[in-house]
């Protein structure tokens, strides 16, 4: 836990608000899943909010982001309107992928949010390519990709780390280490559990960060981006965190210990940070209530928007398989 919050009040509160926005969005999404309004797979981010918030606030708005199937928070913080996210989960044409992608495939070209990737390990080489393009176009925009610790066992991850290091590409590899890949703990899936040591051996600078502390996340990301802007190539950040809910709404929770879950919940990024703000006098109870109300209102408006959404006409199903139309 950072000793004190080193930000002006407004920004400090914004971080809390954004974590609340993700949390409330997801809690509502879980309900909607229970009601059958959202279907397919729904991977919740609850417990990990500090990471998306801390990292995305450090990135510039035109930096590129590639995420995973657990990406509601990243999309939201990248600037995808919440209502377009909820509408997407509803399968509506007003969704950010026209309802074709669902929870796992949020996309938004405008904000350079490149998904939403449901293949474990898929985000890394895509980010390498985006960074390569930017370099070749003499651009200065950076690329960040997110993935879980489980993805580090995939060959794609090793290949991508090597490629980024070899070509000194400015990719920020953000590993959200929530200790489990589905039901398999890190220690049961990787011989090397010190992820930074593993990554470091690929010649990618790596640092481990408390992923439950939004300030630590933000500061570590800023430092890494600074290094990258100096032309040092990629950086890897391990964010130690925890999922508070089961892996996916479709799955049970057979593998994690209740006591472990409870211990981590005590370190929940929202209430600890909120308490810190209050202790530092950056927020009072009324202020906190106001933020909560703002987040809740945004969620309700987003749900109302999705409820009022429409379906893509079936006649359009074959559109966009290719750029030009194709009759089958």
């Amino acid at each position, binding site marked *: 836990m950072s000793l004190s919050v080193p930000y002006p009040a407004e920004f400090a509160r914004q971080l809390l608000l954004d974590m609340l926005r993700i949390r409330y969005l997801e809690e509502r999404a879980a309900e909607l899943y229970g009601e059958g309004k959202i279907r397919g797979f729904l991977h919740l981010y609850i417990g990990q909010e500090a990471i998306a918030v801390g990292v995305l606030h450090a990135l510039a708005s035109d930096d590129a982001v590639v995420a995973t199937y657990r990406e509601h928070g990243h999309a939201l913080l990248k600037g995808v309107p919440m209502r377009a996210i909820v509408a997407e989960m509803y399968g509506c044409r007003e969704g950010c992928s026209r309802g074709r992608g669902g929870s796992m495939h949020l996309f938004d070209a405008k904000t350079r949010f490149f998904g939403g990737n449901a293949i474990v390990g898929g985000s890394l080489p895509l980010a390498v390519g985006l960074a390569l393009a930017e370099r070749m176009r003499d651009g200065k925009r950076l690329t960040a990709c997110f993935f879980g610790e*489980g993805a580090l066992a995939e060959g794609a991850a090793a290949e991508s780390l090597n490629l980024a290091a070899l070509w000194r590409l400015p990719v920020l590899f953000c590993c959200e280490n929530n200790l489990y890949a589905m*039901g398999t703990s890190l220690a049961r*899936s990787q011989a090397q559990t010190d992820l930074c040591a593993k990554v470091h051996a690929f010649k990618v600078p790596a640092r481990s960060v408390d992923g439950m502390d939004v300030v630590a996340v933000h500061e570590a990301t800023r430092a890494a981006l600074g290094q990258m802007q100096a032309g040092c190539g990629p950086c890897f950040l391990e964010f130690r965190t925890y999922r508070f809910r089961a892996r996916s709404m479709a799955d049970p929770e*057979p593998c994690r210990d209740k006591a472990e879950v409870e211990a981590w919940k005590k370190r929940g990024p929202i209430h600890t940070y909120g308490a810190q703000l209050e202790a530092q006098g950056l927020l009072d109870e009324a202020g906190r209530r106001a933020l909560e109300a703002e987040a809740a209102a945004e969620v309700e408006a987003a749900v109302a928007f999705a409820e009022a959404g429409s379906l893509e006409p079936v006649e359009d199903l074959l559109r966009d398989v290719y750029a030009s139309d194709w009759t*089958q």
Partner: protein
Amino acid sequence: MSRVSYREALRQGLREALCRDPQVFLMGEDVGRYGGIHAVSRGLLEEFGERRIRDTPLSELSFVAAGIGAALGGMRPIVEVMTANFSLLALDPLMNTAATLRHMSGGQFSVPLVLRIATGAGRQLAAQHSHSLEGWYAHIPGLKILVPATLEDARGMLWPALQDPDPVLIFEHGALYDLEGELDERAVVDIHSARVRRVGSDLTLVAYGGTLGKALAAAERLAGEGISAEVLDLRVLHPLDDAAIMASVCKTRRLLVVDEGWRSGSLAAEIIARVVERDFHELHAPPARVCSLEVPIPYARHLEEAALPQVPGIVAAARGLLS
């Protein structure tokens, strides 16, 4: 006879194999503690222990290739790949090693590997989790491709697959896991023949895996219209049971293939080609197929439904053959 789900029938098959042969083991992502992403292997870790129910890291290429190596080394591995979508990561060892090794070594090596792979769409899992690739895999010589569509096959195909000295891929359709029915535990199951699931005389509906139920439902509706459809369950996609296909088509003189794969290059095309190559003048109508539209399967329910073969479309196509 007992009332079970497809998932439970699969689990019975696994339990029996693990009990019968100490060289059989199961490995894959989350097959152990988690019980398998489709809950097929739930309880097996407790019963058979960590040695034989092995959770793997997220490394599809290497644990499939390690399965090949373990088969070479004298074991009888059952490797679960969570879904066909991820099996693409393991195609190199499958096509370049498992499928070639016996032949290119001059017959010296066997790869008695069994792969279990969930396949198919229908659960709103969108483009990266909905491929139906079993028909596509049937292109690869050296592999055998099985598609259990009934409870008996779900339970019974595993053991003969394990007895087979060659690599066998068993594709379980994701929409079938919850299917329930009466399982005849004494059913003898082979892994080389197709099977007539409904006898008919006016046309042959060829189906497999996820489309068998739809073909049977269509046949039922057609019966209401006075059309007698025979339904042939392929069961084995490679090598195909030509004789069974020809026998049915020679009788009905009309062929409609129902295939969840994308149309171009579908297994349905192969079946049509085989039939017309041999029995061209015997047919009363052009052969036809109902396949998935050639589109990444979308999330939205109405779009996903429109992309996949459905009963009304099958019925309409069948009517078309008779008009």
